[in-house]
């Protein structure tokens, strides 16, 4: 047999990691699926009771729906603010780009607990927002901003914004600048060029950013629980409560599987939209 070309490596080199994943990633997930099909906590009786318990329970369903809805709101806010930021980035001189990149990347690498803690300080009763409102006379007593839906959305948007901005920067910097000149030479104004030329061409980047932001926002356990407080329950905390505090492994496993399926569904949807938009963007 002829020896393999020097530019390619043997697929066997992937074996150690593949074995590691089979043992410690695939096997645990299979066990999770198995456990979710037990009807009792002592794991003796097979059945679909845990899934029925979740899917027929209005409370559990409302937790699922509010988690997905939270993801949608965070993703839209990230897109609304992240797109202009990426737009400004690609049009900035080199030095400004360096500073902007530091501002964009820093939150991504700062500990999630630290970032969430910052929002507790900002939104608290003695926080900066309340002090500003009180001193401007816009409020008589400190407002309750922590433990509200709006608070969770804004805090999550900051935490996940880099995941939206980075793919958008890549997509926007690939656009041929001549296209915009051509568009304006043909009489299209700034808004029209944006909607008709720039936006369609960046759709694959938008979809990639939305996918990452959405998946990160709905699974962001720390930010959800600390900024949302006890009143607002989302899927990650629901899963944790059932498994840890109540030791109800079969139900916690069923919640995990339903959550996994929901996330995979969203990922598939965004990937599909991304592929469709890529076809559209390339004509």
């Amino acid at each position, binding site marked *: 047999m002829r020896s393999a070309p020097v*530019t390619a*490596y043997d*697929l066997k*080199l*992937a074996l*150690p*990691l*593949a074995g*590691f994943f089979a043992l*410690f*990633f695939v*096997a*645990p997930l299979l*066990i*999770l699926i198995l456990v979710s099909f037990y009807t009792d906590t002592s794991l003796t009786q097979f059945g679909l009771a845990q899934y029925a318990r979740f899917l027929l329970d209005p409370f559990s369903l409302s937790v699922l729906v509010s988690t997905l809805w939270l993801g949608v709101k965070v993703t839209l806010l990230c897109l609304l*603010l992240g*797109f*202009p*930021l990426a737009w400004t980035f690609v049009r900035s001189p080199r030095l400004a780009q360096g500073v902007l990149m*530091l501002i*964009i*990347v*820093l939150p991504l*690498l*700062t*500990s*999630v*607990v*630290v*970032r*969430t803690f*910052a*929002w*507790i*300080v*900002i939104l*608290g009763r*003695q*926080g900066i927002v309340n*002090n500003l409102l009180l001193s401007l006379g816009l409020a008589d007593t400190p407002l309750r901003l922590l433990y509200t839906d709006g608070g969770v959305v804004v805090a999550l948007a*900051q935490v996940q*914004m880099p995941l939206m*901005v*980075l793919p958008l*920067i890549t997509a926007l910097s690939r656009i041929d600048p001549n296209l915009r000149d051509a568009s304006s030479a043909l009489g299209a*104004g*700034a808004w029209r060029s*944006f909607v008709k030329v720039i936006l369609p061409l960046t759709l694959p980047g938008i979809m990639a950013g939305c996918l990452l932001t959405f998946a990160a926002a709905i*699974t962001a*356990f*720390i930010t959800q*629980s*600390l900024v949302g407080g006890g009143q607002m329950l989302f*899927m990650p905390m629901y*899963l944790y409560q059932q498994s*840890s505090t109540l030791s109800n*492994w079969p139900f916690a496993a069923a919640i*995990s599987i339903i*959550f996994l399926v929901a996330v995979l569904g969203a*990922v598939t949807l965004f990937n599909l939209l991304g592929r469709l938009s890529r076809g559209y963007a390339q004509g």
Partner: protein
Amino acid sequence: MARRTFDPDQASFTLVMGALTIAAITLLLAPTLVVVIVSFTDSFSLRFPPPGYSFKWYVALLDAWQLHFAAWNSFVVALWTTVISVVLGVAASLAIARSPTLTARILDSLFMSPLVLPALAFGLAALMLFSLVGLPISPLTLIIGHTVVCVPYVVRTTVAALAQLDTVLLESSASLGASRLYTFRRITLPLIRPGIIAGAFLAFMASFDNVPVSLFLRDARTDMLPIRMWQDLEGKLDVTIAAVSGVMIFLTILALVVMERMAGLSRRLR
């Protein structure tokens, strides 16, 4: 020169884009600044702006043995996680990066999937596995769990670095009589090293900051820093946490600047 006529369309577009950009930068930057400022407060509350400034919470940090213990644990686990992730991840990347086979594509998707799947569900699943096979919770189980969720960062940056590698260099090296191992050591490795370093750094940070997996795979003996901080925040709003946060932000900025110089980190995140 002709005076440019006022174009309301262009002006409104620039205005909206500019305003939203400023809002985005404020949103990204404000929390970090607020934490750093509040960590220098001289009061016992998290009031912002602080009534006065002092270093007393940083001094108090020197005696916070629980936080020292948790930080050391997190550091050791993150270090082992990074070493194992780099060894397994780089080997796997070499195998799949240039392979057009279906197996390679499937493996690539498998190795990347921990990035999008809810880590909390994986943490629970791993706990179930370990209790089923009778492996007690220990630093080892933590390192195994962390490696699964951190290895994708190494694979992603290394595969990207390998994809950019000019194959002509490898072919010339081979035609000049170099062995495969020699070519790897002298050509491939130096060229993909920034990618590996960036991936190792991201894996380390992801492990050090991990909550969802640690939540299930640690016990009192293996307390981890982010979980210690989270539990402190749930109970009482302690200003010491602000000082810990200040230290972590400072170290993160330092590491970020070093990594940008060494490995062009921000390019590899896209």
